[in-house]
């Protein structure tokens, strides 16, 4: 390979890498295996009724994207995977809720060109123990990241949604009993 060909090849690789901004850090299957130690419970479905949709809209600022939300629940521990747009592209994140409190958060796929710092454990550990207040906001302040405000906001919205949905499923369980 001549030097020019090598240079062009390198340039192509760099350009392709720049265009391909998607970063998948963890597959949903891997996240579930991590949460449930390879013993994930059966997938369940929460129907987003009109009543639930109203509350979701208050949190997300837009109507829910789909009518059925899948989740995994074992005892008081539920796991949720959401897609929410930060600036222009959706961030895929997984949330584990235990006893109505956030127990774990992971960014599974990040698609924006900047703001990917929300995936760092130092940022995500702020959510641990967070609960949903009556006004459907988190009961604690999450410190932002400069230049990643929209991604941080999207993470906050998803954390609130996970807590809301967990509460809904717990209420449905009580109603069914």
């Amino acid at each position, binding site marked *: 390979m001549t030097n020019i060909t090598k240079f062009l090849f390198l340039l192509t690789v760099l350009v392709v890498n720049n265009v391909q*901004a998607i970063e998948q850090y963890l597959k949903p299957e891997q996240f579930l295996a991590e949460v449930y130690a390879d013993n994930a419970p059966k997938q369940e479905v929460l129907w987003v009724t009109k009543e639930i949709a109203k509350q979701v809209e208050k949190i997300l600022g837009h109507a829910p994207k*789909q009518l059925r939300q899948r989740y995994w629940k074992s005892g008081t521990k539920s796991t949720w995977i959401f897609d929410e747009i930060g600036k222009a592209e959706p961030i895929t994140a997984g949330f584990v809720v235990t006893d109505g409190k956030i127990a774990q958060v992971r960014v599974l796929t990040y*698609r924006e060109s900047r703001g990917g710092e929300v995936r760092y454990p130092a940022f995500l550990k702020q959510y641990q123990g967070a609960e949903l207040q009556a006004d459907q906001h988190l009961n604690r302040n999450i410190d932002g990241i400069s230049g990643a405000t929209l991604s941080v906001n999207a993470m906050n919205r998803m954390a609130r949604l996970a807590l809301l949905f967990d509460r809904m499923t717990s209420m449905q369980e009580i109603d069914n009993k």
Partner: protein
Amino acid sequence: MHFVRHWHARLGVLTAVFFLLLALSGLALNHTDALHLANYQVHTNWLMRWYGLKPSVPTRGYLFKDGYFAASGGRWVMDDDILLDQDLSESKQALVGAIAWGDMRAIASEDQLFLYLPDGTLVDKLSSIALPNTPIKRLGSINTDGKPLLVLETSQGSFITEDALTWRILKTEKTSATGAPAWGSEQILPATLSASLKHTFAPSLPLERIVLDLHSGRIFGRYGPLLMDIVALGLILLSLSGVWIYLRTVRRKDRH
């Protein structure tokens, strides 16, 4: 002194338009999130032609009893509604097929299954974690005891579902008793749809991209950035000559 003043004024007038362009586009880019520039799609015909973007109108698609689904250039359209508009940076959903399934419409890519109501409301999006196997090869439906079942053909066999929650393998004996699945297949779209297809598949770009290209000069073509470099050099010269003129004026005043 006169020479510098003379050229400072000329350069100022020459670069004024570009300076305004840079300042205004820079202001807009600084507030891109608040102005939602990334969410606003520009469709203007002459601008799209300037960018070299041509409409890629599909001639084939999937026909339902009361509607259609068509895809082209990463854009998925159902009954004139854009369901998905995949950006260049996205890994494209490789479309497998679409089919009417009971009250819903199922659309499958190799890795995902989308369930929509006829009005375009997304009911569910199933990824590998909710699917029996991937990649999906074909999408079809089969009637068993009057119930429509959705069929996914994969390399590990075909799977059926009543509710897209639980899946079971489609046995060949069952197929012979109930008839073979009807697979979703592409058909030629009727000419009556051509006007609306032209409209929904018209090219577009996010406003943020256009403002960014204006700011960098890329909108002016291959030599646009070079033009902006020259403008930047002009602005540097203006700043230096401005300071020089100011210092000279102050010194003169001090002497008098």
